[in-house]
């Protein structure tokens, strides 16, 4: 059974079928990519899975349980983490604090316990800090732990966002155009990073424009065009798929 199962998902904006009857599955431990030209409905599909938008009809199930139309924080609690196309870090917070927010679901101190600084919360705080530092080290940005996150270089900000998402210890990581705004060298780096994340046992679903990256790292690819799925398969098949070539290059 697939880890994430999207079945006959449909989203209408007025008369526009932004996502039209799309079905696919993401196998556990795989890297799956969603590609398609601008306006194909990739981001809408992403927002439907993460709960930012409510689906018109259809099913999304994760680990066999339906998760469509839940709030984003509930989806996160199911074990799905995400990054954003335009990096969304918390301003006025350091890189370390940003990652520490990612431990929110893995800790439990509430208002009262926090205000009274109960002894067990101090222990919890220490664990949050240690785990977050580990993640910063994993992405080789531990040196910037105490720097305000939004003042870092673009690539480092992306790394902080990745670290924050991984701090959730998710089963599935959704990446919204992880290579957007990166140069060729950085894109290759991020490719390696995504493979490394997969090797940690985390399933990855990404939306991406950069073909070289997608073809390099994906196990399977879904192609969308005008809201509909036109192809699905391994990279080699997609590259030679008649409809895909037509959509990208014209007749």
């Amino acid at each position, binding site marked *: 059974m697939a880890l994430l199962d999207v079945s006959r998902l449909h989203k209408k904006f007025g008369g526009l079928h932004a996502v039209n009857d799309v079905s696919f599955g993401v196998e556990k431990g795989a890297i799956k990519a969603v590609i398609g030209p601008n306006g194909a409905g990739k981001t809408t599909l992403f927002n439907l899975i*993460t709960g*930012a938008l409510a689906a018109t009809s259809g099913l999304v199930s994760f680990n066999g349980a339906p998760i469509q139309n839940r*709030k*984003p*924080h509930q989806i*996160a*609690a199911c074990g799905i*983490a*995400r990054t*954003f196309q335009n990096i*969304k*870090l*918390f*301003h*006025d*917070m350091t890189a370390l*604090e940003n990652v*520490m*927010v*990612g*431990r*929110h*679901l893995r*800790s*439990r*101190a*509430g*208002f009262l316990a*926090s*205000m*009274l*600084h109960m002894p067990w*919360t101090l222990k*919890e*705080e220490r664990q*949050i800090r240690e785990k977050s530092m580990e993640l910063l080290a994993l992405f080789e940005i531990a040196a910037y732990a105490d720097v305000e996150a939004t003042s870092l270089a673009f690539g480092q900000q992306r790394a902080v966002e990745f670290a*924050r*998402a991984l*701090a*959730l210890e998710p089963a599935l990581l959704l990446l919204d155009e992880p290579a957007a705004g990166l140069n060729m060298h950085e894109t290759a780096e991020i490719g390696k990073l995504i493979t490394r994340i997969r090797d940690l046992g985390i399933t990855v679903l990404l939306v991406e424009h950069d073909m070289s990256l997608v073809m390099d790292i994906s196990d399977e690819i879904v192609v969308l065009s005008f809201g509909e799925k036109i192809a699905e398969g391994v990279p080699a098949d997609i590259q030679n798929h008649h409809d895909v070539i037509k959509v990208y290059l014209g007749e």
Partner: protein
Amino acid sequence: MKKLLPLAALIIVVIVIQKMTGWTDTRFYLTQLTMAAYYALLIVGLCVVMGYAGQISLGHAGFFAIGGYISAALTTINLIAYQDRLVIRMLDGFGLLVAGQDIYGDALLVVAPWAACIAAVVCAGATAWVLGIPVLKLKGHYLAMATLGFGIIIYRIVLASAVFGEADGISEVPPLPLLPGLTVSGDFGTREENYYIAWGMLIIGMILLRNLIDSRVGRALRSIHGSEEAAESTGVNTARFKLKVFVLSAVFAAVAGVFLTHYNGGIGPSEASVMKSVRYVAIVAVGGMAHLWGAMIMGVVLNFLSLRGVFGSYDDAVFGFILIVIMLFAPNGILSLNWRGYFRGLFRRSGNTEETGRAIDGTP
């Protein structure tokens, strides 16, 4: 250790000021310092909502008034005429009522101050909860408008209700006994004692909020300020956290209202006015929004000056002016300004030009 230093310094300053008023025979200052501390308690609570969670409230005078007015009404309304009613007998049975005599020697039966105090704070918290559920879905200016509307409603209610004394407010509010030997009252004999009660409350409030900000919950609140979407994606239930912090700040405001009312022995409708809410927001802005210490210091200083009558009849105008100036010249609060650099610049003009000259040369 580093966190305890400012608190220790504050405690020393509080004690030194009290001693100094004793030596210089200016004990009358303690009255305004006591009142300023209670206002500052409201302001630090508002600071957490505005500066850290990023949610504006122009209705905090409303919560202050709910606290003050309910406690005042419950401890002054004579229930003697209803003493045979079942409800009153039950309340009496639970020890929630106290009997006494008014100034004319007539029998008086009112709610015990401690019970009235708890009821008032619970009421304010519950109001914040009910108001917050729909209103906190709004953002920015819309949230400001909605909370402003709430403030106006509370103001008109206290102004139009006979129970709340209409334009006269409520007077003859009895003292609030806290512990044996500690009573919140405006009696001259207890001026020092009350100064320490007020500052003790403020210091406890500061410790609680300082701890809160420096915790999992504090980070979640700041993340909401940073990006609500990203906060949700990391699993923060933004709606619930916003609501809880709003209720918490309303409780701080209500506690301040209750204590100040019992200290003053009364409360008037001006405490509920919209200008008060604007003033609180202005003070938080002056302190630097996300700066708890700045908010507290400014809360004490500006309220003290206002209570001493330094601003005269231009009181509200001064706070409006402060708000404009701060927004223009120091949107991060006056503590954020580079004071050290400014003074250094004043005294070492020549040194500066020398540095510039080097930079142009390109020599290090």
